[in-house]
């Protein structure tokens, strides 16, 4: 990490001054630096799922109507926004999350770690909120569950938890500072 190495050296100076009693932060830092990688892997999984849903929106469901829940969910009025299948939004979100995770893990691009983390959190928060709404619709409005949509919702929820942890531990309240 170009910026992260700089940051950790800053942190060690902070630590020596602000809190002599603080535990060595090396272990938690290592753990946190692995989280973007986990998000990256989950993002690729989510991309696969939503990509499959885009494909079926145009292929399978356009050809046959099967008596199956996925079809029901995918052809309901909630499946498109202004004519665009929501699976496309899923693909866009996972691509963004993958890019933001990769940029942090492999130090690519012009943006700082904090900006990337904040953007990733906002992106996955929006995705989570929309997934939450869609799962509610599946359960209580159209009474059908689409396993792929639920898979995507679960992946999004896990990524939200990871990004929230990252945001809290590294941007809002870095653990190397004791209050």
């Amino acid at each position: 990490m170009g910026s992260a190495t700089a940051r950790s050296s800053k942190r060690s100076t902070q630590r020596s001054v602000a809190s002599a009693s603080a535990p060595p932060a090396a272990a938690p830092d290592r753990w946190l630096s692995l989280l973007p990688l986990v998000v990256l892997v989950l993002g690729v999984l989510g991309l696969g799922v939503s990509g499959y849903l885009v494909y079926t929106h145009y292929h399978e469901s356009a050809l046959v109507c099967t008596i199956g829940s996925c079809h029901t969910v995918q052809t309901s009025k909630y499946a498109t926004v202004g004519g665009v299948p929501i699976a496309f939004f899923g693909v866009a979100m996972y691509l963004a999350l993958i890019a933001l995770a990769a940029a942090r893990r492999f130090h690519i691009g012009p943006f700082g770690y904090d900006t990337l983390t904040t953007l990733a959190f906002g992106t996955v928060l929006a995705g989570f909120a929309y997934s939450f709404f869609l799962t509610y619709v599946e359960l209580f409005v159209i009474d059908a569950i689409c396993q792929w949509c639920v898979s995507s919702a679960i992946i999004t929820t896990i990524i939200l938890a990871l990004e929230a942890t990252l945001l809290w531990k590294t941007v809002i309240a870095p653990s190397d500072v004791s209050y």
Partner: protein
Amino acid sequence: VAKPNPSRNVNQRTQVTAPASGGAASGSPAGARADSRRAQRVVAQRKAQRRKRLATLGGFSALTLLVVLAVIIYSTRDNTSSASNQPITLPSLYDSGSIQANGETMGDPNAKVVVQEWGDYQCPGCGQFARGSEEQLVNDYVKTGKIRYEFHDFPFIDARVNGSESHDAAEAAACAADQGRFWDYHRTLYFNQATNENSGGFADKRLQAAAQQLGLDMTTFNDCLSSGKHKNDVLDSYNQGVQLGISQTPTFYVNGQMVNGISYSAVQQAINAALGS
């Protein structure tokens, strides 16, 4: 969107730290007191910064959720009202002089081969077949007297996507059949499918507009539709389909044999096999 500026935060953190580490390192009691006061100040500043970052994040998150909410409201409103307001456009109709149509069947009543399609008016696959291949089927096999072609209602989508438009459309088509115009009406519906099921595409208003444009007797048609004259016919047809074990639409049968596949070539192959035997 006003982004928080984390890079500035990092700088501030460094600035706050710098004088402390570079400052009095004398080890004298006075120096230690100054150190601890400075440390306290640093802690207070950090707390303030953390509050500020949290507030910025809160605003950012709230804004994100507002945008999502707006999209949700837009998406749920958008589709419900518009489909029922779309005009009906008439497709090119089959030349009624060259086909014998009787109710929901067409072609020679004594044809050696009977082809059945089980379909739902809201099913995109059925629409694709009706718009793409049906005309060829009619030209190649119905007009030439080789097959009798039957359409059977299998309105299963309503049970899956909360609504009644598959049933309503099937009943309306039966009402058109009463006036000898089943195939024209059938074709018109498939050419005017809505993108989304039960979103108003086959609301009564549009079913009536289709009948009107085809020049049906509207008093009879409206009475037929509103009285539910063919409600039970449609339900019976659906139950027959269930008993046959139909699980998707369109499903084709050639002389009682289910066709494996829904492409024109699959249907054509099955017909040719039946004609050859």
